[in-house]
């Protein structure tokens, strides 16, 4: 347990280092790229004195290190500046848009887990027969198809051809959103007991979440399959068989459990990568999430909003990685982390 805790502490420390690095990187990108952010924000028709005033307001007339320190100081207070496009604090905008994205990504991760891993177990069990081959084709297609193409395929199939799921949006127009608790419609509807709203919102989420999950789903299945087959070939499975342990127990405890460790690590990365894919899927499904907000910000050269969104996504990415480390550390009984040996 102690080694696990010190491992965790080390990971947290490293993550904080990376987060500081990310803030410097984003700051540098925002400042080094040619063009005056104030001029870009105000457009070519603004007068020179207006530009100067905004430059002063954005701290752009100070030396770079001072600008960075000011940036960090404001960050510490949870101040990401005012969005030049919506004219609201960026933090407020993110609070409004992030829950919708989080909801989508969480369901995507869940789909990846509950379909990907059983698919891998099936593929391992029926290796080199048709379920295995189907899983293989699925994995190849899943990774190679851009999420926005999945989104269009799934929309054509389920919303238009079969017609069982809504085309776009987050909630049908005739329904009122539930009272605001977390900002996630399905969760809020559940908490406040609005079952009709929950079911409606859930159905709206299915296609976008599935589009996000596709890339990781097949990969999760392939990894589970390969790792399960690997662990079936080990001496401890042989030993367990010799002792007469039930085949199902062997599958669950000795084959699946070690197979999940590398699978979870990769799935954590896939899960975090969904935030990138969400940019595309939200556009297709007209989903009012943070990705669509960021795309608007980019198209309008909204400096503060771009910096804020990128930082939030980076932080989310790091948090997911830490959670994955904890989960993997928990299911791996012999976790002992090698110090960087040189």
């Amino acid at each position: 347990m102690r080694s696990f805790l010190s491992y965790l502490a080390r990971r947290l420390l490293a993550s904080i280092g990376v987060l500081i690095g990310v803030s410097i990187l984003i700051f540098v990108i925002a400042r080094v790229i040619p063009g005056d952010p104030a001029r870009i924000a105000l457009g070519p028709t603004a007068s020179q004195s207006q530009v100067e005033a905004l430059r002063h307001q954005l701290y752009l007339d100070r030396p770079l290190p001072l600008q960075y320190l000011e940036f960090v100081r404001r960050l510490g207070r949870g101040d990401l500046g005012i969005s030049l496009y919506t004219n609201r604090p960026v933090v407020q905008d993110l609070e409004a848009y992030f829950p919708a994205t989080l909801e989508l990504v969480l369901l995507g991760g869940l789909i990846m887990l509950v379909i990907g891993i059983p698919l891998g177990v099936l593929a391992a069990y029926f290796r080199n027969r048709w379920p295995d081959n189907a899983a293989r084709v699925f994995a190849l297609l899943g990774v190679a198809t851009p999420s926005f193409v999945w989104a269009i395929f799934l929309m054509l199939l389920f919303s238009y051809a079969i017609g069982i799921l809504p085309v776009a949006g987050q909630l049908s127009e005739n329904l009122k959103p539930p009272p605001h608790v977390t900002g996630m419609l399905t969760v809020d509807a559940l908490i406040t007991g609005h079952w009709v709203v929950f079911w409606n919102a859930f159905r709206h989420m299915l296609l976008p979440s599935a589009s996000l999950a596709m890339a990781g789903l097949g990969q999760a299945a392939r990894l589970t399959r390969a790792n399960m087959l690997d662990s079936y070939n080990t001496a401890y499975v042989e030993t367990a068989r010799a002792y007469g342990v039930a085949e199902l127990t062997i599958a669950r405890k000795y084959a699946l459990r070690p197979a999940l460790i590398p699978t979870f690590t990769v799935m954590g990365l896939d899960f975090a990568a969904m935030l990138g894919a969400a940019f595309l899927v939200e556009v297709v499904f007209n989903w009012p999430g943070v990705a669509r907000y960021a795309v608007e910000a980019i198209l309008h050269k909204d400096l503060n909003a771009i910096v804020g969104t990128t930082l939030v996504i980076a932080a989310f990415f790091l948090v997911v990685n830490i959670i994955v480390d904890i989960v993997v550390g928990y299911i791996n009984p012999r976790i002992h982390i090698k110090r960087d040996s040189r």
Partner: protein
Amino acid sequence: MIWRSKAWFRFSRNALSISGFVIVAAAVLLALFAPWLTPYPAEAGKFVDFAHASLPPSWHHLFGTDTIGRDVLTRVVFGFRVSLGLGVVVLALAAPVGVLLGLLAGYVGGWVEGLIMRTTDVFLALPPLVLALAVLGFLQPNLFNAMMAVTVMWWPWYTRLVYNLARSIRTEGFITAAEVIGASRSHILLREILPNCFPSILTKMTLDMGFVILIGASLSFLGLGVQPPTPDLGSMVANGAQYLPDLWWIPVFPGIAVLVLVLGFNLLGDGLRDLLDVEV
């Protein structure tokens, strides 16, 4: 002789690797000779023919026509040019930079290693698409800037790969031997370590072609890459998505084209990985 080796036998017997090779070769040939191979080369870019607009797939227009009357098949094939071009330029810029930094970090060590590898960690801490978007957020949306944005975020993968390779090769006997006879640091880096990294780098570049094409298509899907009327797969899908479901052929065929292209490079890369027996 590679074609008599066991690995080549494995590669050529593997239907998936071969189909990857065929897809990539076909795409490259189509892209190179697009003006001669497409049915309506004049319709690739600026062209309007409302008399033949929004036609469903038929023998005259296998993939149908778009809302201003351009042949979708022709535009898809010309779109390969942009996708492949983007992949080649990005990797030609990102890979050498990444490889060089990885070699330095892996062999020199010390603060050089610390600086390079911690910087790499920072770059790899963000989803690739998001970092490219952050860079593009401050630039004008066009193909050149999209290439630069993807390049800026792609080099760290090569640094990490070559760093790990260099560290394990560094301990091999032939490096010690070279050091003992007084070979210079640059000789060891470029003539001893680098050649041993080539198989892995080549495999990674093949696999990455697919991913770079995917990211490029994603950027232009968001309107941040190639601008119309240049034919590009991502922007064709974006454009066609607003006419769903009636004019389904406008987004669906370019979408399938991206899928096939990326799949081709993935299969070829997997085949190469087996053939060269490397980890990437």
